[in-house]
């Protein structure tokens, strides 16, 4: 039997074939290695050994002169060697660059996915959103009336197709307990207009929703949450509001305009959504421009149709116009400004990081001036030296870039959930490090390397060898010193811009959280009930349910007060309509004001801590057959009966009829959708007299703990009807908190960037001053020998640094003041030139700067005259 020949594993042989010279030379080396390999004991240790040997061989041969070498690779090797020799500098520079690049790339990946990539629809540029707008009341982007939508659809020739959305919470069950989930009723053409096809399943049939036997299409989220991502979801049956519906499609994870967050879509023809006998406005419309039609054409055509509608239905179309907008802007909504601001802020941070590394590189270049001078004297060309310095910077930047991509990866992981939660950003599911992002990272890295490589390269090229060598590196580099001081001023200025921005955002966030809400969220627990299904058809059963619930709420153990409201403040949806005072001449339709409409049950005002200003709240005697009474908000009174007593006045509210309601009480204004909204007129009904909505958010002000209160609520609801679930249980504090998530994260991130920038600037300042002190050791020594006191020296050095700080502060504050206009769109009750934010950032940086100056100054004092002089 012939012995087994020595062999290398395939991967090693392949690597060596590529990494070693060809012919016998390489073959023999491989043979040697194979022989030693086969003599070793098999096992993991042997493989590790082999991997190390292969790597070292390839490394050596790649580096070996005359074999694949060249000016550039020599420069690279040299650069790597220098980095290894100076690990503190290298580590600092790489860390700084990685932070800057990583942050920038992470935010770029968000900006790209959300703002730059085209919407994930078929021909997204052709999509528009159609709204109604009430010009006299300055209401824009209002949902539309179904009759008007039908008229547009009927008459328009240049809108190719449209999809209509009506978001509604539904009780859904996949065989388990029903729970309330967000769903949207859409016309069957909705998905077709967008060009979104189900990932599986046929989707809605053209006649879907017209007949019984409902069909539902699940969003990706719905598929995961309702069916646990069941691969055989198609054909399964869900119970939706008590009737069964078949799953006919599962959508990909895309943003659904006006239906985002919906777990399921239900199809319904437009005619079933309502008509002009119902004057309500509640539809969202997505449409596609016909080929060749411009946005302006669509606007013109729909406007002329709407003019006709104002003429034919003045009763509820007076003052209403049509508004057509590009869908893109509507989908992105108001996330654009804060996202660009965040991106800008992190870009400034990257600049500070670059300047900082440039500064470090320059300091090192000064240290190396001796070496560079020798090399110039020995015949190295200035171009060659500058090239070497640039290559060194590029190597640094590349290492920083790689680490930065790691930071970015981590950053997107950490950022995405936080941003997603607070911005409800459409399409954030797509954020990732794709080719575009990596290309951006590469470009930023290269730019960064050039940026902080060029300054030292230029300054190295300028200096003559004789001057440098003569000075023996001690008194050199006035030029370099000046550039470094300028860089520090730039760093300080940029940091101050960031600090000021952070200050403004924090102030704004502070005003938001301290904004007057009109209620007291402490110790309040909320939970929703939704009366859906055949047993609650019509309004009578709703009234019976809430009637039965009321005494149970009143006697909840541990509760100060309990009640319910149709739409909880700061929790999304709401309803509104026009109204007028019925005790004076009826104004023209278009001059009617709009009030938010809420129905309440139990002691809602007591539970929420909404103050009663005048009159009374609802009482148990306010029944269907008693006088129709309404409680209104303070601002409704101010706009309707300014300076008069509103109690007992009649109010005509445009809901089912215009029969007047008698005002019996006035309560304090309460914020509606957003803490930053101005107070709006609001009218409250009691559910017994106005059973408009088959759902209610129950509210309990508890003395006991939250869990106990929730248990009590559940018992109360189950006591009336065990089939009605209590869903979306949350504390009112959490509701308020969630509504401030966006300004919170924006302020937090910019503050983080500003802190890092300030730290980097302080490091830069410290570096420059330490260097200056080191250079002036002799001078300081002489001064002290001649009797200068320590305090004088400290003052001298500190002042030198503070001059830089002051220059940076002035420039930074000027830039911040000039740029504050860009911020104003996201500031709340804080001016873009808020003196407190500007003053605080200046003071803060002055402190940081002083600290960075004092340390080198104190070191200067420790210079002993004798030693300093001996150094010469």
């Amino acid at each position, binding site marked *: 039997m012939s012995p087994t020949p*020595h062999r290398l594993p395939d991967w090693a042989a392949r690597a060596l074939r590529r990494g070693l010279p060809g012919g016998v030379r390489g*073959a023999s080396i*491989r043979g040697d290695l194979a022989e030693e390999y086969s003599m070793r004991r098999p096992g993991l240790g042997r493989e590790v050994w082999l991997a190390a040997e292969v790597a070292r061989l390839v490394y050596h041969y790649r580096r070996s002169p005359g074999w694949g070498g060249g000016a550039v690779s020599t420069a690279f090797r040299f650069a790597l060697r220098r980095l290894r020799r100076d690990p503190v500098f290298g580590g600092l520079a790489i860390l700084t660059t990685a932070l800057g690049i990583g942050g920038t790339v992470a935010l770029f990946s968000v900006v790209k996915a959300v703002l730059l990539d085209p919407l994930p629809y078929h021909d997204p540029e052709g999509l528009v959103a159609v709204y109604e707008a009430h010009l006299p009341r300055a209401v824009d982007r209002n949902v539309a009336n179904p009759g008007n939508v039908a008229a547009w659809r009927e008459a328009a020739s240049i809108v190719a197709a449209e999809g209509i959305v009506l978001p509604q919470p539904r009780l859904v069950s996949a065989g388990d307990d029903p729970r309330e989930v967000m769903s949207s009723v859409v016309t069957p053409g909705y998905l077709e207009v967008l060009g979104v096809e189900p990932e599986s399943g046929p989707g809605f049939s053209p006649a879907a929703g017209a007949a019984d036997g409902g069909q539902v299409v699940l969003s990706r989220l719905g598929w995961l949450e309702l069916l646990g991502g069941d691969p055989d979801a198609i054909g399964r049956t869900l119970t939706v509001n008590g009737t069964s519906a078949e799953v006919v499609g599962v959508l990909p994870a895309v943003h659904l305009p006006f239906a985002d967050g919906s777990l399921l879509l239900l199809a319904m023809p437009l005619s079933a959504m309502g008509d002009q006998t119902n004057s309500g406005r509640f539809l969202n419309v997505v449409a596609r421009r016909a080929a060749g039609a411009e946005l302006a054409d669509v606007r013109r055509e729909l406007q002329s149709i709407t003019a006709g509608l104002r003429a034919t239905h003045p009763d509820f179309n007076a003052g209403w116009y049509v508004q057509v907008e590009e869908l893109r802007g509507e989908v992105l909504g108001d996330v654009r400004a804060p996202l660009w601001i965040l991106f800008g802020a992190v870009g400034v941070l990257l600049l500070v990081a670059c300047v900082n590394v440039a500064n470090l590189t320059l300091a090192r270049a000064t240290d190396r001036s001796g070496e560079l001078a020798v090399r110039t004297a020995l015949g190295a060309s200035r171009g060659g030296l500058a090239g070497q310095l640039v290559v060194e910077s590029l190597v640094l930047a590349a290492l920083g870039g790689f680490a930065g991509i790691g930071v970015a990866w981590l950053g997107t992981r950490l950022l995405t959930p936080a941003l997603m939660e607070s911005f409800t950003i459409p399409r954030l599911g797509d954020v990732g490090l794709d080719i575009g992002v990596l290309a951006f990272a590469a470009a930023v890295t290269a730019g960064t390397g050039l940026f902080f490589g060029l300054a030292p390269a230029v300054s190295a090229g300028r200096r003559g060898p004789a001057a440098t060598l003569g000075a023996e590196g001690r008194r050199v580099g006035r030029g370099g010193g000046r550039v470094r001081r300028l860089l520090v001023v730039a760093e300080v200025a940029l940091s101050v811009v960031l600090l000021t921005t952070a200050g403004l955002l924090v102030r704004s966030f502070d005003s938001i959280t301290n904004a007057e809400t009109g209620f007291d969220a402490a110790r309040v627990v909320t939970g929703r009930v939704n009366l859906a299904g055949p047993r609650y058809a019509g309004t009578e059963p709703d009234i019976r349910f809430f009637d039965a619930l009321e005494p149970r709420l009143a006697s909840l153990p541990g509760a100060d007060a309990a009640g319910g409201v149709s739409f909880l403040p700061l929790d999304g949806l709401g309803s509104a309509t026009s109204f007028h005072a019925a005790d004076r001449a009826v104004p023209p339709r278009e001059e009617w004001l709009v009030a938010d409409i809420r129905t309440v049950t139990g002691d809602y005002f007591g539970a929420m801590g909404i103050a009663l200003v005048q009159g009374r709240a609802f009482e148990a005697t306010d029944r269907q057959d008693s006088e129709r009474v309404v409680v209104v908000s303070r601002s409704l009174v101010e706009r309707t009966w300014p300076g008069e007593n509103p109690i007992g006045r009649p109010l005509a509210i445009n809901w089912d009829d215009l029969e007047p309601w008698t005002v019996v009480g006035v309560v304090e204004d309460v914020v509606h959708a957003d803490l930053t909204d101005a107070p709006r007129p609001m009218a409250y009904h009691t559910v017994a007299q106005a059973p408009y909505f088959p759902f209610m958010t129950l509210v309990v002000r508890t003395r006991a703990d939250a869990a106990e209160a929730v248990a009590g609520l559940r018992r109360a609801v189950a006591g009336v009807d065990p089939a009605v679930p209590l869903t979306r249980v949350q504390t009112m504090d959490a509701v308020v908190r969630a509504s401030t998530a966006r300004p919170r994260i924006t302020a937090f991130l910019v503050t983080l960037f500003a802190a890092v920038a300030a730290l980097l600037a302080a490091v830069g300042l410290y570096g420059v001053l330490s260097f200056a002190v080191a250079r002036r050791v002799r001078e300081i020594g002489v001064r002290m020998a001649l009797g200068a006191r320590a305090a004088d020296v400290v003052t001298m050095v500190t002042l030198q640094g503070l001059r830089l700080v002051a220059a940076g502060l002035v420039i930074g504050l000027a830039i911040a003041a000039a740029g504050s206009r860009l911020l104003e769109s996201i500031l709340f009750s804080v001016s873009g030139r808020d003196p407190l934010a500007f003053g605080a950032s200046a003071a803060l940086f002055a402190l940081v700067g002083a600290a960075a100056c004092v340390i080198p100054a104190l070191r200067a004092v420790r210079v002993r005259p004798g030693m300093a002089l001996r150094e010469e």
Partner: protein
Amino acid sequence: MSPSFLGEFEQMVLLAVLQQGESAFALEVRQELERSAGRSVSRGAFYTTLDRLERKGLVRWEERLPRDSRRSAPLRHFEVTPDGIDALRTSRRALETLWRGLDEVLEGT
């Protein structure tokens, strides 16, 4: 031509090639080096040094067919050229000159 100046590692490689004589294959030379130097020798450094010595004309090699049937790859047999011998001699002389008279310093307690 004037003999090249030899680095320490180059000298050691040349000497090891001479020591091995007829069996001066790369593998054996390296093992000899490790044995006499008492430390491991980087494979990459070793081969690239051989290449450099070859470029300087201090060693040459010829391909031999392996006698051991398990050796499937070609083998290079190395030999120090007369220039290589000269270079070693020069280096040794230079070193000996430098060493002279320092025994007391270096060996003394």
